[in-house]
């Protein structure tokens, strides 16, 4: 897994087959959870800040979601796709100006102090809204949090805020941290950011830099009989091949977030005792996107963008780059999203002849060397797949007479080149869909974003109609009407191609078959693992 944040919802034909072939034999076997045991998990990065209330990213959640809990967690079958955690119920007012949360009774912080509505109010107002990477957008209109009693928190908004958005944001954005630990001193310098104190099933025990994190069982956890495990160890394995070796040598029991490279999965799925699982990441969908710099006059021409879309063989990309562990994309909302996705959008079939014709029409005819024009192409370095797609795209563009020069950078240099310096023509990016287009999707095409903001529209694209649509959706309270607006949004994006959505993918877990209750919610790897258990 990369520390970088991501998401996806469909279990694809190929991966479903694989799941069936490897996971089925164990279903219906040994269903009584056992207590005790140490679960050892591969970790590939050590986040500099472990506080999920400040840094809402999968790299942080992977470890800290076991320690610090959110108000609600994503669920396969719960109402609105949610399962209660620290909140037991939530209700939005009709005017969109308030949301009332009822909180769980009898919950204690790891240091023994009681959890109350004051902690929720403090986390929301002092951390999510001013400091959190995602909360700064979603909670920007949060004005106050009233606490009429210890178990009720009422969020008050300055402007009508869609309850649907708040609900969709709960699993990732609502980590509650203790007020009594954070209220004195600078929140960002608080030592608890590296040794979190929460209400979760596991307590932070120690971190040995470069070696491991150790979490131990919280005996006072509110969940009945939970957690089952005594200990969770995150073993830091910086080399990608070592996670596979460690699994085979039975030194670790789980490698989540595709820590085992796709190319190794076929081999490792045949090792007795190991399972390859694609389930449990449905709410963590990453999108493979071609980012476009509209300042380039050729790319500002819709015909050229359409030509590029027609030149990409999405099926080939899914088959070859992702080895089938992905789905082709039609637009800015992934297919596996249960609320917003629509198929009613313009599509671009793989058609090189048509792409060539479009470019001719646009007036970019081939020169003597067969080239129409040159482009600078910057694939994001965070995933093998983004880099490999960069190689593919170069060849696909060559077929239509566009000469793409690949520029490979490391993370810091890529972020600077694309989002601050705009020194790109095309870039390959992996933005994340986080269950609601308003969280981190509309920002990819909306105009007026300052330079330097990563994973946003830095391609100089401006479409007043689209901007108006996004603004309208952000203040539409009725969920059905709001959903309609986002369907319109998908249609417009697919038609005007401010960027090109190519594929959607998520992660793979490789796990010992002795681990029980695996992948039982759509954010399993970043959920609290209170019910996870180990066969002795």
């Amino acid at each position: 897994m990369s520390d970088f944040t991501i998401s996806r919802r469909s279990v694809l034909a190929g991966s479903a087959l694989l799941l069936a072939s490897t996971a089925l034999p164990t279903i219906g076997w040994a269903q009584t959870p056992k207590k005790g045991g140490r679960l050892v998990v591969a970790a590939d990065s050590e986040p500099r800040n472990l506080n999920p209330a400040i840094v809402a990213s999968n790299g942080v959640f992977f470890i800290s979601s076991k320690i610090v809990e959110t108000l609600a967690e994503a669920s396969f079958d719960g109402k609105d796709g949610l399962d209660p955690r620290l909140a037991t119920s939530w209700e939005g007012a009709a005017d969109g100006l308030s949301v009332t949360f009822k909180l769980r009774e009898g919950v204690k912080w790891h240091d023994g102090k009681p959890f109350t509505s004051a902690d929720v109010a403090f986390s929301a107002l002092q951390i999510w809204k001013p400091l959190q990477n995602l909360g700064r957008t979603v909670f920007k209109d949060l004005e106050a949090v009233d606490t009429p009693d210890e178990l009720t928190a009422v969020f008050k908004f300055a402007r009508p805020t869609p309850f649907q958005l708040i609900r969709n944001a709960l699993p990732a954005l609502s980590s509650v941290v203790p007020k009594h630990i954070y209220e004195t001193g600078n929140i960002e310098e608080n030592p608890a950011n590296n040794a979190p104190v929460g209400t979760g099933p596991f307590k932070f025990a120690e971190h040995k830099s470069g070696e491991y994190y150790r979490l131990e069982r919280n005996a006072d956890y509110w969940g009945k009989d939970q957690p089952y495990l005594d200990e969770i160890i995150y073993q830091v394995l910086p080399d990608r091949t070592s996670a596979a070796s460690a699994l085979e040598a039975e030194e670790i029991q789980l490698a989540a977030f595709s820590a085992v490279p796709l190319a190794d999965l076929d081999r490792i799925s045949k090792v007795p005792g190991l399972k390859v699982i694609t389930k449990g990441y449905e709410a963590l969908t990453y999108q493979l996107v071609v980012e476009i710099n509209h300042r380039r006059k050729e790319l500002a021409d819709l015909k050229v963008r359409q030509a590029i879309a027609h030149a990409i063989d999405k099926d080939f990309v899914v088959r070859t780059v992702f080895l089938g562990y992905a789905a082709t994309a039609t637009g800015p909302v992934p297919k596996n999203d249960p609320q917003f996705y629509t198929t009613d959008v313009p599509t671009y079939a793989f058609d090189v002849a048509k792409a060539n014709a479009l470019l001719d029409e646009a007036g970019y005819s081939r020169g003597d060397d067969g080239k129409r024009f040159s482009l600078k192409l910057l694939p994001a370095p965070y995933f093998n797949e983004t880099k490999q797609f960069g190689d593919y795209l170069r060849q696909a563009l060559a077929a239509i007479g566009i000469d793409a020069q690949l520029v490979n950078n490391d993370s810091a240099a890529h972020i600077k080149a694309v989002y601050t310096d705009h020194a790109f023509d095309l870039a390959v990016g992996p933005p994340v869909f986080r269950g609601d287009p308003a969280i981190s999707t509309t920002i990819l095409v909306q105009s007026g974003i300052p330079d330097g903001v990563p994973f946003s529209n830095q391609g100089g694209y401006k479409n007043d109609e689209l901007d108006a649509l996004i603004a309208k959706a952000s203040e539409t309270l009725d969920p059905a009407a709001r959903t309609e607006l986002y369907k319109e949004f998908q249609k417009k994006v697919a038609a005007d191609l401010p960027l090109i959505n190519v594929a959607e993918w998520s992660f793979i877990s490789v796990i010992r078959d002795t681990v029980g209750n695996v992948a039982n919610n759509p954010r399993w790897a970043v959920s609290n693992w209170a019910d996870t258990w180990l066969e002795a």
Partner: protein
Amino acid sequence: MTRALLLLRRRLVGSVFVLLIVVVGTFLLLEAAPGDAVDAYIASTGGDAGMIELLRHRWGLDQSALTRLATYLWALLHLDLGQSVTFSRPIRDVILERLPNTLLLMGSATALSFGLGSALGIYAGARPGSFRDRLLSIGSLALYAVPGFWLGLVLIIVFAVDLRWFPIGGIESIASGKTGLDRAADIARHLILPVSALGFIYLALYLRMMRAGMSEVWRQDFVLAAFAKGLSRRRIVLAHVARNALLPLVTMLGLQSAQMLGGSVVIESVFSVPGLGRLAQEAVAARDTPLLLGIILVSAVLVIVINLLVDIAYAFLDPRVGASEAGA
């Protein structure tokens, strides 16, 4: 002893300049790399313009490069290595935590390659041109040609995954609560594979150097004289030929220490050893300039100290060297 002290004084004065050049050079190199620590950080978190500005200010990155270099050098003058951006901890603590692991890995690997390499070199050089000489020369050359990470991976697959004799990585068992001798044995067990991977590659250098040196010495007149005196072949090989061929190896040992630090970056990653090499790699990726400077400084000091020790050893091994140095 005064000879050694004089040498030490001259070396220390020179070292200060070397260190200054190293620090300024590294700072400029990292400055020239695109993207700063905030860019590296937001690659994993995202964030809006306000948050990014706040971070740049908090991490002091809104100041000019010159100001930052001056601040760093001023703090360094007070022996303060500063604060790491990635770890939000004092750099001294971070480095001291990792340094022993790297020293242990490097020291053992050097001992292995020097010890075994020169022993095999003597064995091969005792009869230049013989079958065993050819076999060892070719074998060691093949080993030298192997990339370190590949050798590491092969060792892991054979000895850790298939045979399960050794752990696949790490420096010691996780949260095992072992102390004293038990812990030392545990660490040794974890180090066997990485030390072999690192040590075997450099072994060839010492082997071939020893062998080449010896074949040179065999042609010297004093060897003929020794034979004429009726000394046993064994004594001639060890006391006359090998001893005279040993000096260049000691020089090599000093030079090699710097290379070994570089090689350990790869080995530390493959075997998940929490050492300085891996830390340096992380510091570059995170654009954590002060941390990287700290690591480079410590490594430079390490290399200087080792070379100083080598020179002193030289002065003792070969009286002619020390005399000319001290007399100058």
